[in-house]
């Protein structure tokens, strides 16, 4: 075993953190209040190489390993303090990009990945529906073959980047009797007939990203836009992105945890009460120490999943399901706890919107819900370690 990061890896982290601090952080308070998406920032992220971190250079990417992608995304989360844009980055690059990179035809890769890497196009992943969240395989959206096209009907819910994305990775039932083995995945472009953006969803946090319903009403999708094999969309796509989601997409939350404990340490040294900095009080010191401890636990877990992904050299070595679930559960719960404690350490000002910690708490709360709730993660872990079967 070796837990060292080389100079290049440390630089990746630092560059991403600095970029976030200089280009994203200055406007985050305003964008959070106004729930504004900033395409200008997105394009700059493309120039910086953030949007195509794991993709091969021939498709416009940076060609980083999963673990290096984690470092970049953690650095971005740390410097930007912008959970919303980090979520948009994960939804586009990881959820909508990795399936194309790994399952797509050469033509699909050439059409979508370069535009995603530059920032010209933004992707979204459409799995959840009004009636199926954690139980995603019970989806109702259908895709029926008609000539050389598939006709999609249904509604997808809680779609990050929904109102602003150019293309959508959509799962739909192609063989109702097959259940999870009767679902296929399609790349749907915004311009396709029958596609529309539904209701905008007002959220508690992650307000610098956009979320909406996506409606398919006899939406016509060319058959060449099927991604991967027929009927294997759920199993193939979800299995493929699981490790990526539960490493790279958790990394900005690690960055946020670190930013929170650093903000608390700085504030505690400046804030004088009872004649001395509150940093001198054991209660404050303990809370900050616990934040650091939780961050280190999560970082080890995230890097383990990413390292597993990298083991066959192309980011497709599936990590054990249980390791991914353990990581999701720890990092998401720790993010909430740390953000909650950060508000407490900062006291009255922590509760105001002038400081970043109250937003980080609102942003963190979705971590225990999106991409599989904490309860679902516990079920996955328990079923594995107790051999209860799935």
């Amino acid at each position, binding site marked *: 075993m070796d837990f*060292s990061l080389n100079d290049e890896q440390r630089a990746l982290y630092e560059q991403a953190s600095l970029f976030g601090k200089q280009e994203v952080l200055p406007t985050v308070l305003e964008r959070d209040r106004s729930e504004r998406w900033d395409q200008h920032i997105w394009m700059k992220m493309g120039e910086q190489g953030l949007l195509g971190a794991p993709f091969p250079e021939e498709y416009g990417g940076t060609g980083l390993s999963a673990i290096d992608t984690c470092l970049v995304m953690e650095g971005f989360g740390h410097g930007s303090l912008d959970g919303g844009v980090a979520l948009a980055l994960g939804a586009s690059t990881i959820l909508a990009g990795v399936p194309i990179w790994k399952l797509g035809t050469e033509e699909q890769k050439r059409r979508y990945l370069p535009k995603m890497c530059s920032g010209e196009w933004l992707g979204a992943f459409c799995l959840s529906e009004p009636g199926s969240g954690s139980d995603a395989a019970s989806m109702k959206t259908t895709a029926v073959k008609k000539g050389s096209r598939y006709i999609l009907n249904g509604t997808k819910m809680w779609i990050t980047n929904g109102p602003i994305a150019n293309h959508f990775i959509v799962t739909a039932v192609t063989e109702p009797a097959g259940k999870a083995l009767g679902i296929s995945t399609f790349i749907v472009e915004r311009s396709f007939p029958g596609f529309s953006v539904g209701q905008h969803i007002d959220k508690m946090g992650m307000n610098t990203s956009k979320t909406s319903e996506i409606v398919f009403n006899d939406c016509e999708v060319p058959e060449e836009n099927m991604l991967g094999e027929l009927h294997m969309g759920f199993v193939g796509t979800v299995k493929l992105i699981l490790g990526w989601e539960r490493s790279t997409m958790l990394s900005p939350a690690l960055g946020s945890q670190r930013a929170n404990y650093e903000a608390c340490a700085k504030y505690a040294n400046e804030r004088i009460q009872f004649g001395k900095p509150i*940093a001198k009080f054991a209660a404050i*010191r303990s809370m900050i120490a616990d934040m650091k*401890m939780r961050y*280190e*636990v999560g970082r*080890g877990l995230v890097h383990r999943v990413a390292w597993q992904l990298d083991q066959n050299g192309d980011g497709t070595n599936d990590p054990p399901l249980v390791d991914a679930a353990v990581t999701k559960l720890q990092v998401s719960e720790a993010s909430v706890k740390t953000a909650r404690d950060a508000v407490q350490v900062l006291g009255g000002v922590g509760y105001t919107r002038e400081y970043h910690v109250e937003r980080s708490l609102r942003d963190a709360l979705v971590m225990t819900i999106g991409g599989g709730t904490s309860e679902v993660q516990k079920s996955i872990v328990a079923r594995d*370690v107790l051999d209860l079967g799935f």
Partner: protein
Amino acid sequence: VNFGNDPQVQTRLLSIHEQLQRFRPHTTDALPPSRITDVIATGYLDAVLHGGWELRALCETSLASACASTFVMMQAHVDALRLIRAAPTAPMAVLVAGDLQLQPAGGHWTLDGTALCAVPAAATELVALVTTNTGHMLVRCPVTHGGIRTEPVRTLGVRASEQHRVSFGGVHADNSSIVEVTPADLAAWQQQAHVSWSNHALGIAEAAYDAARAYVSRQPKQGKPLARQQSVHFKIAEMKVDIDGARLLNLRAGWSCAQPKSDPSLIASARLHANEVALRTTEVALQLCGVDAQTDELPLERLFRDARFAATGAGSPDAQREAIARVVVDGAA
């Protein structure tokens, strides 16, 4: 970054681990006097002292999961051997640290004070760690020294670790018995000791997790295994999350210790987390297994008590928090 085990480490660990796990006592706090020599015969000492950080960490956790009391005794021996730089084959010495004073007296020194420590029957030498005005020193004394009194003490946990109240009353020591410890050596030993105690706490947590998992899988309730109850298997899942996180953090802390510049906040984080995990896991396991866990038919009541010792000895959780805060909070000032 590489999370893969070195194959040579794995092979050596497997051999030691299999032997150590046979020592898992399920019914008693009392151990046969031969236990220490049995452990040494597995190659444990050599692995821990000279096998590299990875093998050391894995062996320590393995021994603690097999028997926390034996770990405590072995650790007192390992600490002494490390500080006096003795070979694994040296006669059994144990480290004594506590409220001890060393005073010059003519051409020699006088050692006074008391301490609580493991003194196995096989021990032949006590190595007292003393803080003086000029630094830290070790005083080596035979257990049979006339000025030393050892009285067995019954403790809440690790009852088979042969804890004794050791009293030094005007023990004469000449210069040949004194070993100076440099600040760097002391700091390195302290960091390594914290990692060892983290591994100890993790081993206790793993043993409790294993016992609870086995119990809920076989114990029926209303016609199906207890494990089928969501409230039960969620608790098992939480234990798994805790233990996985602690294991990885302990390994990173052990790795950090072996680097030219270690990270004290990482090491303290590992110790703090492992202690919390041991306390939490043993308590939840005790609860999950109901009244059966209160008996000595399961190891859980013993592990519950042992975890307390792990969290108290050689640096409390608050001391670890303070160590982290010195880096994170004071470093930001």
